[in-house]
């Protein structure tokens, strides 16, 4: 893991080439996270790839419901030579969920970005084939958002048995 000072140095180096790309660095449970501005994500990814983080393990979306820029996208990078993990995080507002796709830099992000679009509604500009991947293609709504109901059937008990239509109607 890049320790706290290594993380700061890395952030400054990226800051030199890409002015105001790095918004914040977090060092939590000896894991390094860089908060990046959504506009510069492709450039930062390219730089990190040249610095040795050539493998991207995972891309996943998070809905930080109460606090404001609600949708987050996290990229888990891995440097196989130095066995070094780094998380790049960006926060996007829910009304304009637009981010550049990093498929050119890391082709592994193809399916995973489609899943984030399917589950959270974050649109990835420049993605070769941005369609729903897990839900049916004509499904409305983004299920993983916090305000989307878990859904499912109400369980039939004695008291609510008359209100629920018979199970197999």
């Amino acid at each position: 893991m890049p320790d706290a000072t290594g993380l700061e140095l890395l952030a400054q180096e990226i800051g030199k080439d890409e002015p105001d790309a790095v918004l914040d660095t977090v060092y939590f449970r000896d894991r390094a996270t860089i908060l990046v501005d959504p506009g510069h994500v492709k450039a930062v990814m390219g730089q990190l790839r040249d610095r040795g983080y050539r493998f991207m393990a995972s891309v996943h979306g998070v809905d930080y419901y109460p606090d404001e820029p609600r949708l987050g996208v996290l990229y888990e990078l891995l440097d196989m030579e130095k066995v070094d993990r780094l998380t790049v995080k960006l926060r996007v507002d829910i009304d304009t969920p637009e981010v550049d796709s990093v498929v050119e830099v890391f082709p592994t992000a193809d399916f995973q970005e489609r899943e984030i679009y399917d589950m959270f509604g974050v649109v990835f500009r420049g993605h070769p084939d941005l369609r729903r991947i897990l839900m049916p293609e004509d499904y409305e709504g983004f299920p993983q958002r916090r305000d989307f109901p878990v859904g499912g059937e109400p369980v039939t008990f004695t008291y609510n048995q008359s209100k629920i239509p018979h199970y197999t109607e």
Partner: protein
Amino acid sequence: MSTPPHISDRPRGEQGIDVATAGKQLEAPEEQLLTINFGPVHPSTHGVLRLLVTLEAEVVRDVTPIVGYLHTGIEKTCEDKSYWKVVPVIERMDYLAYYFNAMAFCGAVEALVGVEVPKRAQYLRVIHLELNRIMSHMVWLGTGGLELGAISIFWYAFRDKETLLDLFEMSSGQRMHTRYFQVGGVFEDIPPGFEEKVRAFCAEMPGRVDQVEAILSRNEIMLQRLRGTGVTDEQTLLDHGVTGPLLRAAGNPWDLRKAAPYSSYEDFDFKIPVGSVGDNYDRFRVRMAEVRESVKIIEQALDGLPEGPFMTEDRKVALPPRHELGTSMEALIHHFKLVTEGFRVPPGELYYAIEGPRGELGCFVRSDGSAKPARVHVRDPSFVNLQAFREMAADGYVADLIATAAMLDPVMGGVDR
């Protein structure tokens, strides 16, 4: 396609891609190309994987994996459960590697809470993880053999799988989805006869692998079907994020158990089987060699099994033992607190990765301080490995497509979550 009335009223537009023109941009004349569904209900797709295949007579020109037919919304369900209730749900994700799912989640939460797992629990976890890896490889061998025409291999492989499920049943009470791993350690200590049974299994397993290798490894049909098909070089695999036996078959010895040892894997010495060419035959041999290595790990773990608690002493996370409830008041309070609401995890988020039977299985957990996780995401190796399927299967024969799908070993529960 009008569906009968009592199907849910949601309109069923199945075809996102315009299937008629899917393969058109290729250079072959139109009427030669046939785009057909190698669909969700197919004996050799290992579950509900759908491959949209564009064929030119027998040669596969283009293949697009379409997934989602087993999407169960597990990550959404996890957000509705308290931490110790998430384990049974998350175990049903990749249903051949249930101990690995539980280990990834428990590892992430233990790192979040900062609880320290006792040495004996770590060794017990390693034993069950490696037994589960062998079981997963046996199911792959059985179903892979069916696809390559070696029907009898199914019965060889499932005979060993049954002994393994007996061991799981002995230690945890259930054959599959055993909920044996807890945050902070293991649910129960192993019963007295367990060690002898595992040693007996470890004694006969290499012989069983020799039997299978004697039948398959020099079998002319198997050599013709597997050697030289589905060849992919290491850099393409790395670009597509492929890890696990597929990457090791291409020559890159990347294995998280050696690279970033977790749960005291550094105490055991075992080798990482690595292929050279990166074709289906290497993948087959790498997995068979991995079974032998796992047996070695289990034997070393059994020899070095330390005494001591099988569960962390931190009562904030682990249920107190039963006899303590009768005497001490604090145990009763902790017990009540844990059973009703479950333990609270300080806010934070982190990603914890382990080496599953199909590649890097990572679990991202975000907690907002309450007793329920705010977000649980599992990076499933099969989901990422499927992206490289087009590079493996394009411009090969249909028979090689089936052999490559068998050697890729995708488990649809993990892919669709």
